[in-house]
């Protein structure tokens, strides 16, 4: 239930990157969410419009890549996808596996709207551009 605060920090991080690149708007934000990260993707989607209102990320598309839970088995040397509450090796049954995926909670990339040189010379509002 902390998806709103996570969305707020996501928006802060993305806005900071946009400012560093001199971009005024963010078109798309890509995040990776592991199924064992404790974060619900649906709740993130619902929280995002509230968290991004009035920021450079307002209106951006939030893309979420859900990362499956994976374990590495040191006994049979295999990496397998497993359910989030059954982390033993599905091949040999060895229980002391190492988690190799599923904990991700990552801002992967953002798409920035960058105005081209020609347009920066004219008004940014199309309805104010004089007809020629």
């Amino acid at each position, binding site marked *: *239930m*902390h998806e709103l*605060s*996570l969305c707020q*920090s*996501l928006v802060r*991080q*993305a806005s900071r*990157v946009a400012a560093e*690149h001199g*971009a005024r*708007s963010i*078109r*798309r934000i890509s*995040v990776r969410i592991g199924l*064992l*990260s*404790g*974060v619900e993707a649906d709740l993130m989607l619902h929280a995002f419009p509230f968290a991004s209102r009035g920021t450079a990320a307002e*209106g951006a598309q939030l893309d979420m890549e859900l990362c499956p839970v994976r*374990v590495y088995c040191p006994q049979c040397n295999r990496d397998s996808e497993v359910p*989030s*509450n*059954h*982390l*033993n090796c599905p091949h040999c049954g060895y*229980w*002391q*596996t*190492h*988690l190799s995926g599923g904990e991700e*909670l*990552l*801002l*992967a*990339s*953002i*798409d*920035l*709207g*960058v*105005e*081209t040189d020609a*347009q920066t010379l*004219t008004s*940014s*509002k*199309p*309805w104010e*551009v004089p007809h020629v």
Partner: protein
Amino acid sequence: MCDTCGCAIPDHLYHATNEQTVRTVEVLEGLKAHNDQTARHNRHHFDAAGVLVINLMSSPGAGKTSLLEATIEALKSRYRIAVIEGDLDTENDAERIRAKGVPAVQITTGNACHLDADMVHQAVHALPIKDLDILFIENVGNLVCPASFDLGQHANVTLLSTPEGDDKPLKYPVMFRISDLVLITKTDLLAVLDDFSCAAVAAHIRQLANPAPVMALSSRQGRIEPWLNWLEEQMVKRRTPHFTPVTANARPSGVMRPHVRTHAHV
């Protein structure tokens, strides 16, 4: 649809006349970067002060405060103990702890469902941390969110009370997977709860690939020796050079990261 380019974006009028080029920037930054940084900062405080910090988590009503009361009673003659209490509201738990004669700071989170590293950082500065041996952080009663926020603790201890049912580790794998110790509380009720099996709890913890010890306790009946022994072991480990903290993401106590905070350290 936009007549100029055929796109379907809602602000097509803007798009058509003032086209923007889209630049993709790779970031690869954790969404909890701020919390994790503050947690590392807290751990620096704890390691510098030589205090063992235990994060206690469970459902509401599983017996965290009762266990702490019994623990303080058993250990206060030998160790200097303090408690940070997290609750949505009231000072009740901190008052129960203070009644045992040890300092307690109450954090009321309002509607927040967990403690985060910033809240703990503020509370730490309200405690005489250099004069402590053990600091317990009693997290907000919740089996979901507290698991996602590092506070700077050295170990996560999760309580599971017998009336909750022995299948909780499978229902809340995020929390039980990261627990360094699992305590089954209220075992005095096992006489009337014939469907609860301590062995099943241990099996479920192993199913999460977690080697954490599972101990059966009753604070009410004063049966908490395995937990006290575990605490003693952690104290010995902390006082032994080259101790490696229990938590996977904790740093060795000898290595101090540079500190970017600006406040004065006392």
